């Protein structure tokens, strides 16, 4: 259990204590970021696999936290570790053909998303569900990109650090993605 004293501490303080081996500080720190890391992993993996990959990620973070050089934000570093673990997982499953760390987002980790396909779109579609349907239609790499920017709150430079993809490529993908989403939302978008 995390002590209240840790809950009130800054990331910086927790990071320092965790780096010195305090498991409680580590837990308090990860408590703040684990949700975003898990959601990121679960975009690319089944719930069972995501749980395993999260464990691997947390273990790697625990083992590497004393060497974290703060050149990137903690969140960016955590997401980069998670991405490496995801890619290790796919490599181990011999899905490496879909996985190229230096390549384009759409090919980077491969698998199509199949979360909640279809049924909730049947009736009474609201604006948000239309937007959700548009997002669901994106491929894995495109969803990864909008997750990192919209949900994880990363900048283009941080997305680049987390994924190893050049900033210019990320910007142009984002621009193309927005044009596609506009097309997918069709009249709905024009009514805004």
């Amino acid at each position, binding site marked *: 259990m995390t002590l209240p004293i840790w809950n009130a501490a800054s990331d910086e303080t927790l990071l320092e204590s965790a780096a010195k081996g305090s*498991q409680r500080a580590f837990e308090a720190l990860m408590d703040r970021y684990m949700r975003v890391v898990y959601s990121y992993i679960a975009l690319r993996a089944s719930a069972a696999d995501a749980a395993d990959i999260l464990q691997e990620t947390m273990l790697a973070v625990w083992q590497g936290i004393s060497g974290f050089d703060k050149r990137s934000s903690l969140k960016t570093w955590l997401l980069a570790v998670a991405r490496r673990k995801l890619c290790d997982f796919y490599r181990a499953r011999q899905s490496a053909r879909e996985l190229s760390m230096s390549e384009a987002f759409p090919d980077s980790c491969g698998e199509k998303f199949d979360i909640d396909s279809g049924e909730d779109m049947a009736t009474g579609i609201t604006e948000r569900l239309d937007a959700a349907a548009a997002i669901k239609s994106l491929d894995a790499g495109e969803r990864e990109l909008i997750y990192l920017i919209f949900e994880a709150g990363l900048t283009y430079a941080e997305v680049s650090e987390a994924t190893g993809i050049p900033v210019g490529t990320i910007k142009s993908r984002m621009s193309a993605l927005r044009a596609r989403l506009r097309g997918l939302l069709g009249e709905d978008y024009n009514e805004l």
Partner: protein
Amino acid sequence: MNCDEVYELLPVYVGGGLGSGERGQIAAHLAVCGECRREAALLIRLRLAQRELAPILPENVKKSAFRLIEAQKRSESLAALETLNQAIGVTRSALKLTYELVKI
């Protein structure tokens, strides 16, 4: 900031990733530009939809991850103890040897 610059940064603005300086500049631009406001509204809708689709972290998964760290830490401590034990053993043997030599 002009429309092109705002257009490029809008997703990061909506995601909350910008610092206060750029955030203020974009907010000021949005206050006077209907076209960019429209684009921002689209991105906000997409962000809300994205948030609803984001997989939720189950509590048991979180606990398992922490338990694994605990187990790892315990095994590291045991390994460190083992090393210490070995070092003590070596020291003891050396001391014993020294004692024997002194006796001779």
